[in-house]
């Protein structure tokens, strides 16, 4: 009958931030204020006005007239740069803070997960924290007891379950915290960027768990900067910017709109002011960017397409052999690979002064999904001197649109690895009754479904 799960109507939220500077303040004013202000504030306080010190503050609208509806069972991603209002929206829907104006209706039991380990107490043991944290997140005591073993197993902390968590490693701590949260079973789950924790392997486990949640017909609102996770988990994505909804639609469309809009990671970086550019005595970096095969600068790259990484630099002193090179790190901090300029025209050849653009082409079907951060470096050869290094100046996202012709084939769930080359596979087949070809097949154990 009523399949609306979340209904949001013109929600706005105003915050007071920072102190407004009065231009002309005399010492007398300041002193007078120091005596008078406390009384004024106390009288306000007693009248129950929350805005005691707020008059002096500037306000911003963290959210402005946001309206949308989410159907039951929908998994919706919320993206946007920092300060776009994502977290404020989740806080309002979780009833942690009130909207300034507007109305929202939520149909069903809400579990919100804005942080892992909220309410964990250092002095308590793992066992005790599971109970406490479960209760804080809204689980019933019976529910916690029922799922206790499953939670401990998921967190992989069996041996330390009766040790105070202050003796846990940070990884164990986070695993335990997430394990409790992952076993919440509300009809509506609000999740804020909690996957950015723990080691890579556990993150993947959590993503899979999240995906299970989606498949159980639960409504999920999921805030993240992790675009691959968003595109994998969500059918629909809402893009927020400056407190308003900029886009709302199918995940791939919105994610690529976001990545192309310049709101996300930046695909091009220029140094118009030479004084501020990374520079050595021989070479100076002027710009670096990512472009597609047809020359379009972009942050979003199709996993199947070639991508070009370029740097523009100036040679200030003639007569040196230069070696531009790029390093690529993924979002887990893994140094995926490095590449050095191999252009035969300039190999071992001293360069005259002037402007150069060096471009490296990375073939399609090589990189794995996710964000790659690019470092642009320059050295001279013989003598080897370091010229400049511009770490993490630009970044781009490798996106798999799951059409079945990428290296992941028809597998749509998590697939790890720092690179993902498209390889040729072949199969030998012998029908039953003939001599069998045996092979060691290692199968991944299926994820435990929580019930």
């Amino acid at each position, binding site marked *: 009958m*009523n399949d609306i799960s979340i209904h949001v109507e013109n929600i706005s939220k105003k915050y007071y931030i920072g102190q407004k500077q009065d231009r002309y303040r005399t010492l007398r004013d300041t002193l007078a204020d120091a005596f008078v202000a406390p009384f004024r504030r106390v009288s306000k*306080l007693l009248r129950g006005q929350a805005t005691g010190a707020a008059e002096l503050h500037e306000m911003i609208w963290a959210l402005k007239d946001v309206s949308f509806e989410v159907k039951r069972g929908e998994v919706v991603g919320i993206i946007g740069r920092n300060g776009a209002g994502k977290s404020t929206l989740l806080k309002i829907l979780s009833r942690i*803070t*009130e909207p300034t*104006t507007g109305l*929202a209706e939520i149909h*069903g039991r809400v579990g919100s997960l804005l942080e892992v380990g909220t309410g964990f107490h250092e002095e308590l043991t793992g066992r005790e924290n599971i*109970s406490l944290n479960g*209760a*804080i997140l809204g689980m019933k005591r019976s529910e916690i007891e029922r799922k206790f073993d499953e939670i401990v197993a998921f967190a992989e902390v069996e041996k330390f379950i009766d040790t105070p968590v202050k003796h846990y490693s940070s990884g164990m701590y986070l695993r335990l915290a997430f394990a409790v949260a992952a076993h919440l079973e509300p009809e509506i789950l609000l999740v804020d960027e909690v996957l950015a924790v723990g080691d890579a392997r556990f993150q993947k486990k959590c993503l899979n768990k999240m995906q299970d949640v989606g498949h159980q017909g639960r409504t999920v609102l999921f805030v993240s900067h992790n675009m691959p996770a968003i595109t994998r988990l969500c059918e629909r994505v809402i893009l927020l910017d400056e407190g308003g909804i900029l886009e709302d639609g199918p995940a791939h469309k919105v994610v690529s709109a976001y990545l192309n809009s310049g709101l996300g990671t930046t695909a091009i970086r220029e140094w118009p002011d030479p004084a501020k550019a990374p520079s050595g005595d021989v070479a100076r970096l002027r710009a670096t960017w990512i472009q597609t095969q047809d020359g379009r600068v972009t942050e979003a790259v199709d996993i199947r397409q070639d991508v070009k990484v370029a740097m523009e630099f100036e040679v200030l002193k003639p007569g040196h052999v230069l070696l531009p090179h790029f390093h690529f790190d993924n979002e887990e901090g893994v140094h995926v690979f490095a590449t050095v300029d191999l252009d035969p025209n300039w190999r071992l050849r001293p360069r005259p002064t002037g402007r150069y653009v060096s471009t490296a082409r990375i073939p399609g079907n090589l990189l794995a999904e996710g964000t790659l951060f690019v470092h642009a470096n320059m050295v001279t050869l013989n003598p080897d001197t370091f010229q400049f290094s511009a770490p993490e100046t630009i970044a781009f996202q490798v996106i798999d649109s799951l059409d079945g012709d990428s290296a992941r084939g028809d597998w749509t769930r998590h697939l790890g690895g720092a690179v993902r080359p498209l390889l040729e596979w072949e199969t030998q087949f012998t029908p039953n009754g003939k001599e069998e070809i045996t092979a060691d097949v290692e199968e991944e154990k299926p994820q435990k479904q929580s019930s």
Partner: protein
Amino acid sequence: MQNLKKMKQQSTNALLSSKANDVPVIRIEPSQGWVSLKLDELWQYRELLYFLVWRDVKVRYKQTVLGVAWAIIQPFFTMVVFSVFFGELAKVPSDGIPYPIFSYAALVPWSFFSQGLGQASNSLVGGARLIKKVYFPRLAMPIATVLSGTVDFVLAFIVLLVMILAYGIVPTINVLFLPLFLLLALSTSLGVSLWLSAMNVQFRDVGYIVPFITQFWMFATPIAYSSSLIENRLLRTLYGINPMTGVVEGFRWALLGTDTAPGPIVIVSSAVALALLVSGAFYFRRMEKTFADVV
């Protein structure tokens, strides 16, 4: 009364239950002015309340050498100091009861009150992370903190019982009223804590004020002396405006059998405590919407 009704009607964020398919519907909208206390919701969160109390009790004396002994040491040694200075040196009259037990019987509920006040007034600021990240009725925080003090109270009370036996005092049937006096102490502690904890969110001055309040309040309460020092009956009854007077005199009457039944004092004290509690709760609820943004 009409006002109360009006407040209830203005209740927002109410947890309604649609009868049709039994899916709870939560309405989220800005609240204005005085809002309902939502005690029903607090009841729904009783398990969380239980866990918060349990946590406070569990961690209170972790990593202390003397552990739960602290619950006894504080009132006990205060009693020793009082006995030496007020009892022996100043010869403060103690209604014909040995001074040590006279003062200790008052210090036990007083410690419960002052510890509860000190910790609960800081409960929201101390639990800021929780408030910013999870929804639950915020009233649960000061309530849990005050309630967790009952464990300390019980320990100190056992020592009191031992002393009563040691002094050969036979408690009368009035002992049955004791839980009511404890409830009075709890209401007073909670009432003041509700005001102060909510103010503390915005004005950390409260952290500095509380030790003062506690100190003055202690001397304004007949702990080291007896309220019978005030001979005018009317004035003595008015002394009950300090609810802790009712608590302390009540404890002495119930346990030690002081001859003047503190009836009028207790009635005044209860009225004041109730007023503190109800006004504190409404003030707290009114300020609640700002907690997550300001704390």
